[in-house]
């Protein structure tokens, strides 16, 4: 019972950050119809950047995020502008191939630079614990949860209350009409890519304390993100956040009670069951 409570709390907290990662990909999808299979690998990239910044300057991940964020934004900008924009509108298999190619590039790049061994980055709060009822929790999880929630709320306000948000929704609903209103569609898409990828720097720094890094881990995050995105109905804001909690919870419960890799079976199984009953996503109509 204790273990279950622990798993549930942990899964719930981490689910908030998963939701944030998936929101980034959801935003990207909503303006470009592109699903990037390299999304998790860009988070690896951000995390390894933090490793380097720690190695070189003893910089805490919570501090180095102020460097990785703009770097990843630049990466996202370049990814759309130079790599994806030229092929947008072409065969979707072509775009999938392209992003799959990127995962190889990123994973092998990281392998070359950092080697294959597991890495850890200590953080000032890494080992700090607190009690939640009877269960012992680590501070980084709570920080990740609160920061993710705050950022998700900011994203929501941005989407609903600002001109940039209106432009994103316009491009999502009808790119041609958006262009006729004077929206610079290419610019909106490029900025959304920059934002969606830069969010991975934040998520990366939040997940880093206590995590062990390994160059191939991006795939796992990509899979988790895609599960959440589909559960959430691809571009439904609340649906995606909800999906984050569901996958976070089921992953935590799965890995606690089933050993090792087979723990990931639970989120998949749950995913399949939910999709059978709600094929358009949790809240999906669209």
């Amino acid at each position, binding site marked *: 019972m204790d273990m279950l409570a622990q798993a549930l709390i942990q899964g719930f907290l981490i689910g908030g950050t998963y939701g944030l990662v998936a929101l980034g990909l959801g935003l990207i999808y909503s303006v470009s119809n592109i699903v990037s299979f390299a999304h998790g690998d860009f988070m690896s990239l951000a995390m390894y950047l933090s490793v380097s910044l720690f190695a070189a300057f003893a910089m805490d991940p919570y501090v180095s995020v102020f460097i990785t964020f703009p770097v990843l934004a630049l990466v996202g900008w370049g990814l759309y502008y130079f790599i994806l924009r030229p092929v947008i509108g072409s065969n979707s298999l072509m775009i999938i191939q392209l992003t799959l190619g990127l995962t190889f590039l990123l994973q092998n790049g990281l392998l070359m630079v950092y080697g294959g061994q597991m890495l850890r980055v200590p953080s000032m709060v890494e080992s700090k614990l607190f009690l939640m009822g009877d269960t012992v929790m680590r501070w980084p999880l709570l920080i990740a949860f609160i920061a993710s929630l705050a950022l998700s709320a900011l994203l929501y306000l941005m989407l609903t209350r600002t*001109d940039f948000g*209106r*432009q994103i*929704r*316009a491009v999502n*609903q*009808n790119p*041609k*009409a*958006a*262009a*006729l*209103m*004077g*929206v*610079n*569609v290419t610019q909106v898409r490029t900025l959304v890519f920059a934002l969606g990828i830069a969010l991975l720097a934040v998520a990366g720094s939040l997940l880093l304390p206590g995590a062990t890094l390994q160059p191939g881990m991006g795939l796992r995050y990509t899979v988790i993100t895609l599960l959440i995105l589909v559960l959430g109905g691809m571009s439904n804001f609340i649906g995606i956040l909800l999906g984050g909690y569901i996958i976070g919870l089921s992953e935590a419960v799965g890995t606690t009670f089933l050993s090792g890799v087979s723990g990931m079976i639970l989120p998949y199984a749950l995913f399949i069951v939910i999709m059978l009953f709600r094929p358009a996503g949790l809240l999906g109509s*669209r």
Partner: protein
Amino acid sequence: MIEIESLVAGYGQVPVLHDVSLKVAQGELVGLLGANNAGKSTLINCLSGTVRPRQGRIRFKGEDITNLAPHKIVDLGMIQVPEGRLVFPQMSIRDNLMLGGISARARKQRRQRLEQVLETFPRLQERLDQHAGTLSGGEQQMLAIGRGMMAGAEVLMLDEPSLGLSPLFVQYIFETIAKMHRMGLTILLVEQNSSLTFRHASRCYVLEQGRVAIDGPTEVVRNHPATRKAYLGM
């Protein structure tokens, strides 16, 4: 104000416009008529920059805008109210109108213009926070024209604004267009409803299979034997 010279355009291998020339002077209301698939929408999409012409020139106030991006053309004040309205269905009427005034040119005066639009179309005022998708076709057309007004247009290009509307709404939309014209707006009106277009336009062009078949003062076009036969079926 608008000068189109020998425009050639199409999609992929399919040619649509062949050597089309057309002029609209400042303050004019010009009608562009033609049967379905004649190429009317393609022509004004070339003007808006959403279709790239293969050959020919488009000038706006003397400036060459042939290959300008759509948002830059909006910035110059040449605004299209597209066929089928293309409102953003999942956005509130307020957000739709705010988007109409999103261009650098229009952004500063959005508040005042919003007031004007809502004065012109009181029905939109009552539904400001409702999703545009819940509006009737006629109300959506008001919203689409309202968005055009938000942009601070110098030229308004309306693509079949009467399509699919009840006669009452058609009447109302045409009165609104005439009112905007009287207030000094230059208008290019694409229509299949020829009788109402003839009533309001001073000059007309008739497009036939991507070519200008007839053009001139409305009276001349109306009484042209080819118009009567081919287009009006009289």
